[in-house]
């Protein structure tokens, strides 16, 4: 029964999913060739593993492990601070390379992309597997990082393919072979199915992806909501999710959180951290021309206990000055003297385009106009002189201590060694190879 294919059509669509292997750590190894073959860990400034190279993973290190534990498990690990500028440069380049092959590239995350290859066999004079291999090789030679690739009939299946054989894997799942790849795959490993849905499906005796795919449409319609019905179609090789080529231009919510070490019990300092997050979130909201209708704030103690609060705003806004009053009130509700805090965060949600803002009867429109002028001036100053060139005084106490004291405060090498003409804020938009010649 299970040997029967789900579909006999091999390639009605060809969707490729590309996932960079241990992306941050691979970038570090690409620009620091002496780190190749060694266990590399990024995230020094965070105190936990942000990314671990495959050499480190082999020793049992996973994401999120504290660096203290890393030193115990793997004493020869090289721990470096995150250099997001370099990672972003690599990411942009990776997507550009993919666009040489197909115009339909979806930048799914910093290190993942979907590419629609349907119909390209003709122009490349070869099968989809060859095109995928070429892509993988080009990224390898030009960027010096390895990527894992899956090609199949839908996004969900392509993602299963890219995970099938990591690192540096290349997995093709044509229609007639789908059942072979999902036969033993636990259903919660499928993209979009979380632990709760998996537990729900187990009640019906569904534990593998193939069992889900084989259920008839009536069952699916009766018991599952639309997102899962779509996954069911995708598992059967019927592409539902399109490859979205537009870059992200809108947000559901904008959140800014920052950790600081050592933890602080200084109320002024902790509030200043919150205030700075608020300013940052508002800057981003204004950049995307959005205004928030709800504000969430939270504090995290040294014991990782969280306290948070959601506030509804009387009018959509992206100006910190409108938000300081609710922020202060919320802060006083959740702040407890005597606790030591390690992280604060702010989330702006219920975002609406700033053009549709409706003033209430009691708003002082003249004042709001004034704020809009002030903040557009602030944004212009920041553009010219760098972020925080002008900021609110309530964020000033953040300067009482550096974000991270001790060795976690180490800056990435890129920020230390400047060429003539570069400055702290602006560097050349090319990754720097760190070899002595």
């Amino acid at each position, binding site marked *: 029964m299970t040997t029967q294919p789900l579909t006999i059509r091999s390639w009605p669509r060809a969707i490729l999913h590309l996932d960079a292997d241990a992306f941050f750590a691979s970038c570090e190894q690409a*620009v620091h*060739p002496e780190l190749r073959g060694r266990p590399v860990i990024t995230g020094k400034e965070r105190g936990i593993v942000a990314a671990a190279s495959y050499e480190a993973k082999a020793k049992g290190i996973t994401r999120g492990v504290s660096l203290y534990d890393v030193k115990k498990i793997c004493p020869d690990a090289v721990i470096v601070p995150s250099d997001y500028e370099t990672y972003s440069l690599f990411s942009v*380049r990776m997507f*550009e*390379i993919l666009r040489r092959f197909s115009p339909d590239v979806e930048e799914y995350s910093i290190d993942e992309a979907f590419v629609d290859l349907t119909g390209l066999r003709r122009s490349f004079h070869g099968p989809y597997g060859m095109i995928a291999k070429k892509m993988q090789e*080009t990224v390898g*030679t*030009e*960027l*010096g990082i390895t990527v894992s690739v899956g090609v199949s009939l839908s996004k969900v299946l392509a993602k299963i393919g890219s995970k099938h054989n990591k690192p540096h894997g290349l997995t093709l799942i044509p229609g007639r072979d789908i059942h072979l790849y999902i036969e033993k795959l636990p259903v919660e490993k499928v993209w979009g199915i979380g632990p709760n849905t998996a537990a729900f499906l187990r009640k019906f005796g569904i534990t593998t992806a193939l069992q889900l795919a084989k259920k008839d449409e009536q069952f699916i319609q009766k018991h599952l909501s639309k997102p899962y019905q779509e996954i069911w179609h995708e598992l059967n090789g019927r592409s539902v999710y399109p490859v979205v080529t537009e870059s992200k231009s809108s947000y559901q919510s904008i959140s800014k959180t920052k950790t600081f070490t050592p933890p602080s019990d200084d109320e002024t300092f902790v509030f200043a951290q919150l205030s700075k997050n608020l300013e940052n979130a508002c800057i981003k909201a204004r950049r995307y021309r959005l205004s928030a209708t709800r504000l969430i704030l939270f504090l995290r103690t040294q014991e990782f206990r969280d306290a948070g609060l959601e506030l509804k705003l009387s009018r959509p806004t992206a100006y910190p000055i409108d938000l300081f009053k609710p922020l202060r009130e919320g802060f006083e509700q959740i702040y407890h003297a005597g606790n030591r805090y390690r992280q604060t965060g702010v989330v702006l949600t219920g975002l609406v385009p700033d053009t549709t803002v409706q003033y209430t009867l009691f708003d002082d429109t003249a004042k709001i106009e004034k704020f809009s002028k002030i903040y557009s001036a602030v944004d212009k100053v920041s553009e010219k002189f760098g972020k925080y060139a002008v900021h609110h005084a309530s964020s000033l106490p953040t300067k009482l201590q550096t974000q991270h004291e001790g060795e976690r405060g180490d800056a990435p090498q890129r920020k230390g*060694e400047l*060429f*003539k*003409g570069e400055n702290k804020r602006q560097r*050349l938009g*090319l*990754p*720097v*190879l760190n*070899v*002595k*010649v």
Partner: protein
Amino acid sequence: MKDTKEEKLRSRVREISRFYSRSGRMPSFSEIGEMTGLRSKNAVYKLVNKLAALKVLEKDAKGRLIPGSIASPVKILGTVEAGFPSPAEEELVDTLSLDSLLIQNPEATFLLKVSGDSMSGAGILPGDMVLVDKGQTPKSGDIVIAEVDGEWTMKYLKKRGENVALIPANPNYKPIRPKKELKIAGVVTAVVRKYR
């Protein structure tokens, strides 16, 4: 006699050129006839052939006209065109930025700060930035960044048959002949030095 003939031709080229810069396309045969006062299409045809021979314009496979030197008539015929609309804009279309001059393959180009002086003879000094292209296939004579038996170096690549050598551009250094392994990380495509 010859002068007036040439003068006539020049004025016709000017007419066509003006049409081209005003409307952004080449005129049709009948439009050329109108602007030059040539009543028969055959006369226009002859004029077009003459201009095509002078490379003022070209004809595509279907016989339609493509501008030749007409886009910049100044250079070919030597007549100074006064009143040519926005010369700056027209001429600046085909300029390179310093970026695209130095970087052929933007996705594969990396920066590297030079610390040694083994390539001083090639004009590469300590502190200079070199642009390294990882996508190009290294050829004999290229300056390359290479890993030789575990050491990194920047040298001229010299290939003769099976033999590969890395040649410095400084008499104080010796050529390197890889014993075990040679890995070429990229080809140096440019050097940048900023003085102030």
